[in-house]
């Protein structure tokens, strides 16, 4: 059985996540962006890494969460936690509705479909400028505080907020993958033909996984809105969908920590490379990707675990 016990390395990882507060206090805004991206990547891992659903349009759910949180803050109230929950529900509803189509397809058709949904939503948001602000983005609101903690200039509150939400969602994901349902998802990924032959309702499983992933992506989007007090069309962009896929593959799909690890490496690399070379930083990202895929086809975590097995 998949081992559900907490490993020492996991404790180290989460303790290390606290280091930015003391070691790099000037980078807490970046750290909060990383935590948000990590959550987004984690949500993709549930469907891609565990259930085998390839998506090139996962930003749809991130974006719906971001806009939901933004609209609530702008027109109704600025208390963020309720906004977070509603954003997750809105994204989850969209996920549930689209899942009925998504689960009928696999492979290339799935990539095209998710890409298509993503583009549809982006253009819808662009043209509904009265609601979303269109290309100018949704502005003119400010989320002042969460649970009484003011969002400060350095991003201390922002990072704490994002990290706690990430941690809670991570615990939930960990629960899910070590449950019977998580085992069923791995079964679908491993052999979709066999699943009906053991009596498994694969499509119902996939719909549920897709919906859960959408909720989590929506929460990540809402976090971005709350910590930046603005929503731009970029939250729905193809670039965001592609980036999160790259991040997950970089870190290692189907390993739970692949998303967070990939997010750290990708975002720090982007930050550093764009400082060195503002115009050409994608060159270095490209080089990193080629190197990882060539030498570590299962991502960084996949490479590490293969290395550990070899040494044993």
């Amino acid at each position, binding site marked *: 059985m998949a081992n559900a016990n907490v490993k020492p390395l996991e404790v180290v990882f989460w303790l290390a996540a606290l280091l930015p507060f003391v070691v790099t206090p000037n980078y807490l805004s970046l750290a909060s962006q990383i935590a948000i991206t990590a959550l987004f990547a984690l949500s993709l891992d549930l469907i891609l890494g565990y259930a085998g659903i390839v998506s090139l349009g996962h930003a749809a759910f991130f974006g719906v969460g971001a806009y939901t949180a933004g609209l609530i803050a702008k027109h109704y109230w600025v208390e963020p936690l309720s906004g977070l929950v509603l954003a997750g529900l809105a994204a989850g509803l969209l996920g549930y509705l689209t899942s009925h189509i998504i689960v009928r397809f696999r492979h290339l058709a799935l990539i095209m479909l998710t890409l298509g949904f993503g583009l549809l939503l982006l253009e819808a948001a662009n043209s509904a400028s009265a609601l979303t602000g269109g290309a100018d983005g949704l502005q003119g609101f400010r989320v002042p505080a969460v649970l009484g903690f003011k969002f400060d200039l350095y991003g201390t509150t922002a990072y704490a907020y994002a990290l706690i939400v990430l941690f809670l969602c991570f615990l939930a994901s960990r629960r899910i993958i*070590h449950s019977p349902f998580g085992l069923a998802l791995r079964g679908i990924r491993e052999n979709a033909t066999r699943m009906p032959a*053991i009596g498994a309702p694969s499509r119902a499983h996939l719909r549920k996984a897709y919906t859960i992933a959408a909720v989590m992506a929506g929460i990540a989007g809402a976090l971005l809105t709350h910590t930046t007090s603005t929503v731009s069309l970029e939250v729905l962009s193809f670039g965001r969908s592609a980036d999160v896929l790259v991040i997950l593959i970089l870190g290692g799909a189907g390993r739970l920590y692949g998303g967070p690890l990939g997010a750290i490496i990708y975002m720090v690399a982007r930050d550093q490379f764009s400082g060195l070379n503002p115009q050409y930083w994608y060159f270095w990202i490209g080089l990193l990707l080629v190197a990882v895929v060539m030498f570590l086809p299962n991502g960084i975590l996949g490479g590490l675990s293969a290395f550990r097995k070899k040494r044993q």
Partner: protein
Amino acid sequence: MLSVKSVNKKFGSLVVAQDVGLELPQGVRHALIGPNGAGKTTLINLVTGMLAPDAGQIVLGGEDITGLKPEARVRRGLARTFQINTLFPQLTALESVALAVLERDGHAHNWWRGLARFGAEVDEAASILQSLNLQKSPHRLTRELAYGEQRLLEIALALATRPRVLLLDEPAAGVPKDESAELFAAIAGLSSALTVLFIEHDMDVVFRFATRIHVMVGGRILVEGTPDDIARDPRVREVYLGKTGTDHVSFRKPPLG
């Protein structure tokens, strides 16, 4: 227990099942034999719902299941194995069988409780592995198991659904002849309440283990009967010796060992 009534299926102009009928009373061991391309696997696909028949009926324990999805048929007690290993390469043997047990008991939708809380199901999976002599390496990944063990795991997965009718599509496919006896011994040891239909090319095995034999040729059931009937039937001899010529077949019933 299982009735197949006048089932027809065409792929374009190719007739793969023509007016096929089968009656499997409870507890019998049926063999389905016939040359390659006779439509034996297609028939299993039709019975299990992986293919939809153009006409005809499938009845399981008195219930018409013709319109049901494959997974719904499994839940009603109709399980199958595959000629080509159709397993979960990156799950362990125990995980695979436990998954089938959890699906059967309706726990696989549960996403808030850890697997550790399902001890009874995992224990049952372990005892299924034991019953097929697979208990040595429950925690090894399926893809790391020996080929013969993978063939047994095929059966273990089907048994975990607690079937009333078990359809075995060449359970010993690819297994060396001396090892296939062991595999069929495991099949012979299954509960006598279980109705079994197996496809097999090795006539020694067929005549040793089958209580009834159906011969399928060109998408039709040519003849069905007891092993003695089949051994004497001139049409069967013609199919195996006259037309194909390449199969060397002995129709003597080997002594039961």
